[in-house]
């Protein structure tokens, strides 16, 4: 090879660049897009925006699902309706994350408590806000709360969390 081929001499090399930073891309967003043109369970999100946690129930076999569906996994019917879920339940299990925060969850400052909440008809995972691991016990009563999500889309989005019923926040 010659000097000209490698730019190894005094000649200036052409530069290419990659960005130092990119904004959190939508594809790395944990939260689903929630509107009718994005998801067929938009009614779940609309109900939540209106202040009510709901899920689907099959009108054929009466199975209650969570997460909400468009097809009943028990009988394959797609004749489903939205039913209200209780907003109060009991802590079934919990832990506190003290490190290893997943990217894209900037609102989760460590430490945070994440648990299993038994609402009766369903048992789901959820953040437990305004509580520390050492304050909690299995069986503690918790209440649902709804949070608004900022970014990375312009869409107004919501999600649910829990908090202790006798917590400071009440």
């Amino acid at each position: 090879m010659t000097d000209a081929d490698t730019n190894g001499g005094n000649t200036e090399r052409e530069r290419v660049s990659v960005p130092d930073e990119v904004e959190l891309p939508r594809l790395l967003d944990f939260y689903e897009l929630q509107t009718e043109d994005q998801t067929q369970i938009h009614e779940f999100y609309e109900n939540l925006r209106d202040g009510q946690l709901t899920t689907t129930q099959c009108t054929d076999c009466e199975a209650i699902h969570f997460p909400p569906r468009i097809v009943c996994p028990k009988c394959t019917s797609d004749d489903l309706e939205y039913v209200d879920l209780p907003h109060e339940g009991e802590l079934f299990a919990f832990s506190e994350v003290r490190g290893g925060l997943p990217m894209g969850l900037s609102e989760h400052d460590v430490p945070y408590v994440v648990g299993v909440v038994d609402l009766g008809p369903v048992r789901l995972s959820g953040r437990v806000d305004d509580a520390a691991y050492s304050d909690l016990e299995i069986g503690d009563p918790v209440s649902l709360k709804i949070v608004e999500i900022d970014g990375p889309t312009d869409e107004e989005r919501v999600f649910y969390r829990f908090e202790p019923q006798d917590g400071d926040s009440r």
Partner: protein
Amino acid sequence: MIVAASARNVAIVGGGTSEWGERDATWKDLAQEGGKATFDAVPGVGPDDIEGLFVGTVQPERFAYQSHVAPMVAELLGIEVTEMTARTELACASGQAALRYAWLAIAAGQLDTALVLGVEKMNLGREHMPEMQASMANVLDREFDGVNGLSAPPFFAWYAQRHMHEHGTTREQLSLVAAKNKSHAANTDFAQYRSEIDPEDVTESPKIAPPLHLYDCSGITDGATGVILMSEEKAREVTDTAAWITGSGQSSMAGNSINNLPSFSGWPQARKASQNAYEQAGIEDPLEEIDIAEVHDCFSISEIIEYEELGFCERGEGGQFIEDGRSQIDGDVAVNTRGGLLGCGHPLGATGVSQALEVTRQFNGDVESDRQVDDPTTGLIHNLSGSGSVHSVMVLDRDPQ
């Protein structure tokens, strides 16, 4: 399950591994190291002999920004695949899924010789750990579980909490599992963590997700491990000391998200998968008949639950099982002799392959003497994946039966 009478015997004839840990190496580097080590360890078999190539790996798209990785391995190792190739993804059981497909392809008579290679590159630099954690959180339902910041440590912490709550399992018993496995890894030359520790060291390590401490958790690991599987006819040409696959079971529930898990203290699918595998292998009393078990100790609590579900003891007695020393190398069943995930680390796709290699080497008397089991004849590998909704169990034997 019915095993066809015409199914052929399949053997693991040997294999090799890269060094595991926080490696200054790319995914492609690791694949080459693991492939070379495998061919070096099996003198009668080279790339030209491979008809089927199965690559276990979980997230090359996120960890190495690369997909379509099985053909990439074929290129790197000079393998012209004549019969069958694919990358297998089953989260933490991806390596075992690759083994299972290779076994089935050979048993069914579709090919005679397969390379199973597990590869994972997970350490992207400390500053990118949140990206790695985000990818791992998505093995649950991302929309309803991952979104809550539910990564593996708090998820398995729930199992520890519930097992303690329901069965009286103690913090000390969890520490005994972690100390056993990490200390075993001190005798494993490729392991990520090669220091003996005492049970007290576990509770002195930082609390990651209480009740779990750092030493209750497996590592974030780079590594690659391969094994060669062959039909009986071919295997007899290259070795007298193979590990024969005598049973392989798998069970997945119709549920992966939190609301659809029936238990937070047990894994019914591990019981079902092991019963399937035991039936195929003709095992009636697993504790009596199995000499060595490589089980999925992603967290200390996991191994305690697995003693129960794999039939080594009754439900709720897993804590007592370790306390009584029954899973030590000189106990009733030697569990995780190479050091398990807790000691070796857990390069997701490579773990199942490494477990199978450990059992093969144990049969051959080919491991460091401090971890060698006395004349083992029957072994087991087990992996869970995701939320524990899927369990995979394979039984290996020194004789094809």
